[in-house]
C-alpha cells in the first residue's frame, strides 16, 4: 500500500532529512508534501489527503501543538495519524502531545529505523511492505 505523508517543520534541512529517511525506509511512499508551520500544513490538508502527518513542535506562526489541537477538533482531519518529531524530550511535553491526540513521538536526533517504526506504528502497524 502506498502512503502519502505531510512533513511539517520550519527547518528545510530537517524536512529534507525526514524525506530522505522515508525514501530509504522500504515503505512505499507516494506523495511527500511539506509545510513550514501549522498554518501552512492546514492549508495543504485542505486540498490534499495524506495518510500521516509528521510534525515538529516549535515553529513560527502556528506551532505543532496548535496544529494537533486543530486537527483533533476537525471532523475529517482528526482521522489522520500525527507523529510528532521534536527536539523536546521532556516527559511533560511528550505526555501533553499524546493527550492532544498524537499517535507517536520521536525525539531528535533519531535513527532512521526509529522514525520508520514509529510511523508504521502510527499507521496502525501495517507498513505496506509485506
Amino acid at each position, binding site marked *: 500500500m502506498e502512503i502519502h505523508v505531510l512533513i511539517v517543520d520550519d527547518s528545510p534541512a530537517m524536512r529534507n*532529512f525526514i524525506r530522505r529517511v522515508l525514501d530509504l525506509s522500504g515503505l512505499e511512499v507516494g506523495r511527500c508534501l511539506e509545510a513550514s508551520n501549522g498554518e501552512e500544513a492546514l492549508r495543504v490538508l485542505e486540498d490534499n489527503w495524506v495518510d500521516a502527518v509528521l510534525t515538529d513542535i*516549535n515553529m513560527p506562526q502556528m506551532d505543532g501543538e496548535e496544529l494537533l489541537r486543530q486537527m483533533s477538533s476537525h471532523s475529517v482531519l482528526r482521522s489522520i495519524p500525527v507523529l510528532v518529531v521534536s527536539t*523536546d524530550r521532556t*516527559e511533560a511535553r511528550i505526555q501533553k502531545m499524546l493527550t492532544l491526540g498524537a499517535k507517536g513521538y520521536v525525539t531528535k*536526533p533519531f535513527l532512521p529505523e526509529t522514525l520508520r517504526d514509529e510511523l508504521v506504528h502510527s499507521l496502525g502497524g501495517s507498513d505496506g511492505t509485506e
Partner: protein
Amino acid sequence: MEPNEVQAAMATAVEDVLETMCFLGVCASGQGIAPPDAGGSTPPDGAADARTLTAELRFEGNSAGAFRLSLPLSLAQTAGAGFLGLDEAAASDAQAAEVVCELANMICGSVLGRLEHSTIFRLSHPELIPTPPGPGHDALSNTRWFDTGEGVLSVSLSMQHEYAL
C-alpha cells in the same frame, strides 16, 4: 544545577546529534571554547583566517537562557553533507548554514531535556550571528569544545533559574 552536570549533558548531546545525524564522531572534548593547544586566541580550527559560523537561540521555561553553536565553515560543510546525504564531500555555504541552525536546535533541545525532565521549554528559531571575537569575549557561562577530527566546534549555554514567565 552543578556545572559538571551541564558539561556532561552538553557532551552527551553533541556526540549523540553529530553521530546520529551527521555521521561524525568526537575524538576529544573539554571545557572552554578551544583545545588548550589552539593558543587561546585563534579560531576553533586553528586557522587564523578560517570562517566560522555561529548559530544562537534563546529558550524559556522554568529556566531561561541562550545557546550557541560555533564551528568553522569547512566543518559545517562536512556536517551538512552528512546531514543532507549529499554525494559531494561538502555542502554549499547556504546548506551548511541551514544545517548549523538545525544542529543548534537539536543540541540545545537535547541538553535541556537531559537537565530538566519535567519542564516544557520554548525555543526560539536559531539564527546565525556574528561570531564572538575569541575566547573569553562574550562567551556564555558554560562552554565546551569538541574535536571531530574534521575540525573543532564549540557549544555554549547560559541558564538562569527560577525564571518567571
